[in-house]
């Protein structure tokens, strides 16, 4: 462990930013419970309100549209289970459309609701190239469809899904309903966890989206569900009336307030553009060097629109967990599939949908970067990865 380790797993979590650490420490000096009516409570409540306003500005939504949760998983569960539970009784089984590329915190609650007979679920597999076709989403819509949820950036491959076109499809269906007097609600949600640092999310015309602070240098334990007014949710944690009654429990004040510098940084359009360019160049450099050293490797989604910070590489005739462990022992941290399913055996639904040739199917590794990753680290990582591959 003498040599400095090279961390290429920022899609799993990214190190805490120093301004976030400072904000955390400042927050630890506050003592009030934000629900308390005394001055101490008011002070903390006011700080949380300022934070909520800041997030609302970042996402171009309203103050009351922002719900703080314990993470993206809770946010996704609240959106999905909360919406279905809050639906007014109707004669039809509610229908939900999603993709096979979703994070388990989306796919598993949906499958559970379907298994329990509470929804009818359509899971759309991507077309070749790992992209869910908007036309497939449009074709799946039915009069009783109440929710469409499609990930913005697939966490395993970094492939960007055509949310703009899906927005159009959903808007079309909504228009059809309003013309025919059908008042069945239809909402579009996206899990934007992997997009937070690289997208101008204010411009995304979805009804609800999910973010997670620790993917961008924030602390673990902070998720955000932004949900447009009119999207009724039933609380999934019952108790006190925190978060407008949507999420009971004393707020994780220190962790939440620590994120204030983060949303400020992510709102800076010029900085975002520079970040996109720098990290994209890193990704392309890694892939180019890997192909030069190991001409048989396959870059997943190379021709598809991709997020700057994720590179999914299929290595032939090897086992990804073995390659990952060998790289780990050489000092390079990378990932086999998303961290949330690490330890699970076999090939993921998303990986399966790529129809990789058999000799590549078991050798899928993910490398992910941030703007603190240096070119020198990346160059060294390639050397070590090649060494790990050759064993």
């Amino acid at each position, binding site marked *: 462990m003498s040599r400095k380790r090279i961390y290429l797993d920022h899609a799993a979590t990214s190190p805490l930013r120093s301004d976030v650490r400072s904000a955390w420490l400042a927050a630890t000096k506050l003592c009030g419970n934000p629900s308390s009516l005394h001055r101490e409570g008011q002070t903390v409540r006011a700080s949380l309100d300022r934070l909520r306003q800041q997030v609302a500005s970042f996402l171009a939504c309203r103050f009351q549209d922002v719900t703080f949760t314990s993470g993206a998983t809770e946010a996704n569960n609240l959106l999905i289970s909360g919406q279905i539970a809050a639906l007014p009784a109707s004669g039809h089984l509610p229908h939900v459309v999603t993709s096979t590329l979703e994070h388990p915190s989306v796919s598993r609650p949906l499958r559970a609701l379907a298994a329990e007979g509470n929804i009818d679920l359509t899971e759309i597999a991507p077309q070749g190239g790992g992209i869910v076709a908007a036309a497939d989403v449009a074709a799946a819509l039915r009069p009783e469809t109440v929710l469409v949820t499609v990930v913005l950036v697939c966490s395993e491959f970094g492939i960007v899904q055509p949310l703009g076109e899906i927005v159009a499809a959903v808007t079309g269906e909504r228009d059809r309903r309003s013309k025919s007097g059908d008042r069945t609600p239809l909402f579009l949600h996206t899990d934007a966890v992997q997009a937070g640092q690289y997208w101008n999310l204010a411009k995304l015309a979805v009804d609800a989206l999910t973010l997670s602070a620790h993917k961008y240098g924030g602390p673990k334990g902070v998720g955000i569900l932004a949900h447009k007014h009119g999207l009724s949710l039933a609380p999934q944690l019952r108790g006190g009336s925190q978060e407008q009654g949507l999420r009971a429990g004393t707020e994780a004040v220190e962790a939440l307030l620590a994120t204030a510098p983060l949303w400020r940084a992510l709102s800076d359009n010029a900085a975002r553009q520079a970040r996109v360019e720098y990290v994209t160049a890193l990704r392309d450099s890694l892939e180019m060097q890997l192909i030069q050293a190991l001409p048989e490797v396959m870059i997943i989604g190379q021709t598809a629109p991709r997020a700057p910070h994720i590179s999914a590489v299929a290595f032939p005739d090897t086992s990804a967990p073995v390659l990952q462990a*060998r790289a780990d*022992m050489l000092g390079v941290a990378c990932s086999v599939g998303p961290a949330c399913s690490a330890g699970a055996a076999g090939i993921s639904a998303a990986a399966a949908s790529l129809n990789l040739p058999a000799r590549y199917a078991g050798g899928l590794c993910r490398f992910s970067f941030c703007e603190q990753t240096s070119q020198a680290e990346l160059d060294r990582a390639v050397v070590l990865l090649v060494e790990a591959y050759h*064993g």
Partner: protein
Amino acid sequence: MAEQKAGERVGAPSSVRKQTKGERVAVALSGGVDSSVVLAMLQEQGYDAVAFYMKNWTAAIDAQGFCPWVEESASARTVADQLDVPFYVLDFEDCYREQVTRPFFAAYEAGLTPNPDVLCNQFVKFAAFWQRVQQYGCTKMATGHYARIGRYGGQLALLKGVDPGKDQSYFLWAMPLSVLSQLLLPLGGLKKTEVRHLAERYGLPTATRPDSQGICFIGPISVAQFLRDNLPSHPGPIVNEQGLDIGRHDGLAFATIGQRRTVGLHGQTEPLYVAKKQCATNTLTVAPAGHPSLFSRRFQVADISKLTEHWPDTADVAVRYHAGMTRATLAEDGAGLTVSLAEPVRAVTPGQSAVFYDGDVLLGGGVIQL
């Protein structure tokens, strides 16, 4: 005499040599004290130690949903983290189910008393695991077994552990011979008390952990209870040594050879013991203590594994773990091996392992036949 001769052939346990330093060794870390000490010892000796937890069985083992692997793997991870050693969980569930659990149930249903630890060592730990860890660049593997590696007739051989109360060589008779040259068994020369002291000296969090008991998929509950929970009852008659029907049993799988049986019929007051399980008629034969049917002088062994090139005509045999040694004459024929004991041994149990020794040297073994 034979033991003295064996002693001459036995070399000193292999010691770690300078040139092995830096060599990558896979340590099968179970979360217990023994393998933790192995990891710390090898690290101290300069090996590039990598820890692996073998995930063999993850289902709950009781009605309360107790899953031992959750705590065991966490304990293993804690140890590896404290020693700053890479740690990976390897999944052998399919292999374990096919090679250990399924044969375990099948054997019980066939009236045998199988030895799953032997199967685990034969097919999982010293086979599938060893194959797998070589992909991680490991050129040696180490386990926390109380057994030693030495020499017999000039060849590498497995020897009993020096702690007579902990010697685990009995369970290793079926392991593939080819592993021996890459295997490290650092605990074989130590007593359990010394291992506990080492754990304390290394400051390992497992120093005070109780010894793991039993079988992965059974855990601390009794095998009898486990079988009752997992196999259907299959009632049948209990007969005495004259063939007289004296009671009912609820399944041959739940009876163990040599075990005391309470039989409620015919005013039977004398303690009776299981002498025989007859699957064809689903009959359990019992006999009073000391009855000749409870003792064997001769039995057949199959599925023989030889860990030494040379087998003497006579050897010491152990018919179960921690049973004493009995001198025996070994006669091989086409079907297997006939073991003729120098004195009668009680409760020789079909399905268990008969393990042969020349002094401290593990010659090999086989499965006792019906």
